[in-house]
């Protein structure tokens, strides 16, 4: 096994891992704000990619305009989802929430299939497909976009949660919703906002990965699951732990596919997920409940 080849696997693993990280943070943000595992999270990833396609092809927008429009459209979908599916539940039990988010994801996927069909679609890379050589490995410009955008989003996320009033208020809601209400924070609004942020992040992930992997109405299932796995590794942190979780998963997958067989690629995520849920349900880094964010 050559070093160059390992490097190659690592590089592509890191970029897929970054995608998983973004999706995983989306899971964590909603989980921390509400205690809900939003099984529809993957669908917003799918919507991001397919809306971009629509804005590019149908409306002939340039990439720089199509991407923000697609994020906005997917975010709107997230907002509507919270208002119609989550908020009306009074005193929801965990099982209600599981059912409603799974139901929501099936519905969104079905609508997407009606609208975009069952075909797989491709989206052009943001800035060409000329490979760049790093050491003995080659990397596509899109990989750089993925890593760069992920870093910016993770940093923005950190800034939001630790240095803005609104972000601190969202953390306050997750630590103690009753006390948050008593200081004047509108907890329901914050819940809505957590869905907005998460669907936006999911959409971004779906958009930046689409040029590499193609997209279709059902990509949300697998990507959502991988993101969930990243979040579990990260102990449902909406910060760096989940980023590391995503990167670990991405690299392991890529190495597994390269060194063993590409057939095992998806199995790796499931195995990690199961192992963690059995052995370290608090996540690889074992953060305590109260310090999740």
């Amino acid at each position, binding site marked *: 096994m050559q070093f160059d080849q390992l490097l190659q696997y690592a590089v592509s693993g890191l970029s897929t891992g970054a995608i998983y990280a973004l999706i995983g943070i989306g899971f964590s943000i909603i989980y921390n704000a509400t205690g809900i595992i939003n099984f529809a999270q993957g669908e917003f990833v799918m919507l991001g990619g397919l809306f971009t396609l629509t804005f590019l092809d149908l409306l002939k927008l340039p990439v720089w305009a199509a991407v923000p429009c697609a994020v906005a459209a997917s975010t709107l979908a997230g907002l509507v989802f919270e208002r119609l599916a989550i908020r009306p539940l009074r005193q929801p039990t965990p099982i209600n929430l599981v059912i409603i988010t799974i139901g929501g994801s099936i519905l969104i996927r079905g609508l997407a299939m009606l609208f975009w069909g069952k075909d797989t679609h491709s989206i052009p890379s943001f800035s060409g497909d000329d490979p760049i050589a790093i050491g003995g490995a080659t990397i596509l410009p899109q990989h750089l976009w993925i890593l760069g955008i992920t870093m910016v989003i993770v940093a923005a996320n950190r800034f939001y949660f630790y240095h803005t*009033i609104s972000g*601190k*208020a969202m*953390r*306050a809601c997750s*630590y*103690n919703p*009753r*006390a*948050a*209400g*008593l*200081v*004047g*924070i*509108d907890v329901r609004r914050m819940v809505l906002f957590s869905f907005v942020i998460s669907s936006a992040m999911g959409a971004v992930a779906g958009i930046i990965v689409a040029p590499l992997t193609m997209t279709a109405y059902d990509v949300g299932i697998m990507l959502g699951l991988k993101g969930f796995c990243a979040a579990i590794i990260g102990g449902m942190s909406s910060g760096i732990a989940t980023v590391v979780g995503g990167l670990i998963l991405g690299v392991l997958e890529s190495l597994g596919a390269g060194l063993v067989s590409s057939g095992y690629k998806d199995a790796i995520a499931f195995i990690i997920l199961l192992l963690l849920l059995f052995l370290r349900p608090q996540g690889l880094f074992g953060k305590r409940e*109260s*310090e999740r*964010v």
Partner: protein
Amino acid sequence: MLRLKNINTSYGKVHALKNVSLHLEQGEIVTLIGANGAGKTTILNTISGVTPASSGDILFNKQPVQSLPPDRIVKLGISQVPEGRQVFKPLSVEDNLQMGAYLRYRSREARADIHKDMENVFALFPRLEERRSQLAGTMSGGEQQMLAIGRALMAKPKLLLLDEPSMGLAPLVVQEIFRVLDQLRRDNGTTILLVEQNAKAALKLADRGYVLETGKVILEGAAAELMENAEVKRAYLGKDKKEIWER
């Protein structure tokens, strides 16, 4: 300033408040005493909109407020220091205080004004200033209580509701907290509704008091009178009980 008229509040089948009526005038300190489970916390939470009343009226400055959500109540000028402090443990002292001013940030009030109020809180509780970047959850019970009060003050309330601020605290800390309450009334004209099991200390500070038993107001009057009332003496100021409370 605040008037509750025939308030009934239930938790499912538990009828926790039965036709409770009480009132507070501007600048008063009123205490609410009663045994465990009497409904003291429920009264405060009903005022704050956390557990809405099933019937009755709550008027704040003559305006009906009984069906408003907690954030609107805070906006109107009623802040609660909840039972058991309920600070945001993983947030720093300073961030907790900022959260107290959340609505003021949202209404784009000048940051300098908010900052000045934080300095005022630090002046009331110098210990909070020393620990401004410490995580709230790592502070002692007394410090957390000070923080909970400071956080409520950051909203600039006209009416402050306190739920057993002396619970589990050493006598010296209790003294400090009661001194601050007195000072708040004197300097800012803040009206205070104080729930206490430490009836003696509360009646000493308060102008008036209400005694609550199983969801009903059974006695009300000037604090000095209640202190002399045989029934109150027996039930709430008795030697044995007092020792239990102070533990």
